[in-house]
């Protein structure tokens, strides 16, 4: 079974769409795209897609980027961490090339983004392609998705979740594992599975979809092209991923997903032992807890120095919490320093923030306070 999976995998190429900057993420994406948003103490969102691919034996991955990609470039480097630093293939970063599309705005849709790197896609050596968005926090067993795709004989296999998001999304009503109906939903209840906008298909199918989409100026992959494929008698199979999976488009979703990580059941499906999530290594020391420290229901990365009280928090690498400081319900990104006696609740502190002693900062569960990168407060 394993050997079968691996044999298939050599024939799968990864494409990660990392050009999008979700406006509702506000200050959190001031200098980065959604895909390079720090998440869960030591990761960037794109690590989940890269690791899902790596764990399935995918050796060639293209990352489609457009603007504000400095932080992404810095994070990905040559792709060593994900075993993608290769003589042939490996990680390929794909900024816009030439004057395709519109140079000032963001790509209008997935199709436009893919067409901007058309020559790259045309040169893909593998027979199959997996496409995903870089802002998906999910650990997908792609080897299994691929095996089921081949078994089903579908044109496209769409990875879905039983978790129905509140925001607008594509919903699939299925029959015997295939999509019967495609719905565009604003959220809420009802039958079906929500699309995780991750697809496996053959390279030919993808090129065909791109061709139809660009000639008809229909750039929405999910809404236009999958619907078009169904209408023309194509078969779309649904693969239900039952583990944790969230797309992160807003501060509220980011905060909620961060707090979800305090639940062991969610962590178990996002970080299973057999499919580790890799990220850029920093070589931090272990975290030190001082004599007066207290930590309840917290996730804490390496390199922290904790002398105060933390509760319901996510601490990234290298965070310092001073004596007598109290930090509750907060996400504190790397190298932030919280002065002694400071009190924080419902706060998302970006990287390298400095909070002076005895300052009080409070947001609310609905509207956590975002402190931008490098702020001095």
């Amino acid at each position: 079974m394993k050997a079968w999976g691996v044999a298939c995998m050599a024939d799968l190429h990864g494409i990660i769409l990392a050009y999008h900057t979700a406006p509702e993420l506000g200050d959190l994406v001031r200098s980065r795209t959604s895909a390079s948003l720090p998440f869960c103490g030591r990761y960037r969102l794109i690590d989940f897609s890269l690791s899902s691919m790596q764990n399935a034996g995918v050796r060639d991955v293209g990352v489609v980027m457009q603007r504000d990609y400095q932080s992404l470039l810095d994070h990905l480097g040559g792709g060593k961490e994900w075993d993608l630093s290769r003589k042939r293939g490996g990680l390929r970063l794909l900024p816009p090339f030439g004057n395709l599309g519109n140079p000032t705005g963001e790509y209008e849709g997935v199709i436009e983004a893919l067409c901007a790197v058309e020559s790259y896609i045309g040169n893909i050596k593998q027979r199959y392609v997996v496409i995903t968005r870089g802002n998906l926090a999910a650990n997908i067993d792609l080897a299994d998705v691929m095996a089921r795709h081949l078994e089903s004989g579908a044109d496209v296999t769409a990875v879905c979740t039983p978790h129905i998001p509140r925001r607008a999304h594509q919903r699939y009503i299925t029959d015997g594992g295939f999509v019967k109906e495609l719905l565009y939903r604003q959220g809420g209840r009802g039958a079906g599975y929500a699309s995780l906008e991750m697809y496996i298909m053959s390279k030919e199918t993808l090129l065909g979809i791109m061709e139809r989409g660009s000639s008809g100026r229909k750039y929405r992959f999910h809404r236009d092209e999958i619907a078009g494929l169904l209408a023309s008698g194509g078969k779309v199979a649904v693969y239900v991923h039952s583990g944790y999976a969230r797309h992160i488009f807003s501060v509220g979703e980011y905060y909620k997903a961060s707090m979800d990580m305090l639940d062991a059941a969610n962590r178990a499906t996002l970080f299973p032992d057999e499919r580790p999530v890799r990220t850029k290594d920093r070589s931090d020391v272990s975290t030190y807890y001082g004599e007066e420290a207290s930590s309840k229901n917290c996730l804490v990365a390496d390199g922290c120095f904790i002398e105060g009280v933390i509760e319901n928090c996510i601490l990234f690498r290298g965070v310092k919490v001073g004596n007598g400081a109290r930090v509750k319900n907060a996400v504190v990104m790397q190298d932030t320093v919280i002065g002694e006696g400071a009190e924080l609740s419902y706060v998302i502190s970006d990287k390298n923030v400095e909070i002076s002693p005895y300052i009080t900062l409070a947001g609310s569960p609905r509207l956590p306070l975002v402190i931008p990168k490098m702020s001095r407060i």
Partner: protein
Amino acid sequence: MKRSCIAMLLAGGQGSRLYALTSRVAKPSVPFGGKYRIIDFPLSNCANSGIDVVGVLTQYRPLQLNSYIGSGQAYDLDSADGGVYILPPYQSAGERGSWFSGTANAIYQNIGFIEMFDPENVLILSGDHIYKMDYSDMVKAHTANDAACTIAVIQVAMRDASRFGILSAGEDGYITEFEEKPLRPKSDLASMGIYIFNWKKLKEYLIADEMNPKSSKDFGKDIIPEMLRAGEKLWPYRFSGYWRDVGTIVSLWDANMDMLSPTAINLYDPDWPIRSKSPIKPPHYAGPESKIVHSIVTEGCEIDGRVENSVLSSAVRVGRGARVMYSILMPGVTVGEGAVVEYAIIGENTKIGAQARVGSGPDGSDSWNVATCGPDIEIGEGESISPGAMIYESVGGGLHG
């Protein structure tokens, strides 16, 4: 390609005084200080000192060490024309291959390797010390004093001196005497087991020593005394920073405890990072009922009990109601619910059953000691391990898993 200095790291020793902890792995790959293995210190020192060729001589249980070091990527030593080379004993055509019979013999057997780099000097290191040292500064002193050999030395308490190689220096500063573990030490200058040799000279002495049937083929016992007898210039390079031998259970425990006071050895220094191959684990989780005080905790841990004055490596689990005090828990250790671990070292992936008790605090008696459990074993539910015990095999129930 010509190098001014390359390093040879002696990592083949068993470390027999660590007993159960080195029953399956060589001493240099014993976990240390939460994130590290002992060998991370000399390898990081090499990388930070600009030494980009390191030969690692392995012999005893090298498997884990080999896979841990890999290409040396973690230390940034995976360069195109240098890097980390694992050097096991080997067999040449027409000869019977043989094991390294001593530290000097290990280098002798790798003369061919060293010659590939045509080095001016060779730095000899061992894999059982915790310290940060700029070897390039030592090379400078070696060159400035036109020495055939420079030995790094540190001042030790007179009462401890007989545990070390002790040397004396004359008025001109050069070494006049060297004695390995003397009964009556004449000075408090201890050799740190770090040598720089002029390679041409060392090669001559190695070849001569190999011919001597009476030699034990050891640097401290044979090569250095022979160089002194021959009137070579040997220079002591004084080092005053943090340096600990971790060759015994007690010294390993002590040095780990030093990690709890950042003043002992600063591992936060961005200019001198100690690198390690990090395990791929999410951040550690401290549960709602956990209590972690004056301890270090590493990624991948899940803590639901109490942890005080302890060092936890990656992926350690401490169950509800469990207590871990003054202990060192190596990667993957599980402490079951309600279990108590005090003054103990627990080897990798060992499981301490629920309500079990391992070790206890000092009781003032001479026989008291730190309790040690080897790697990959299980201490059954409710079992009790007395202080000072050395446990190699699983104890009590739960043996069927």
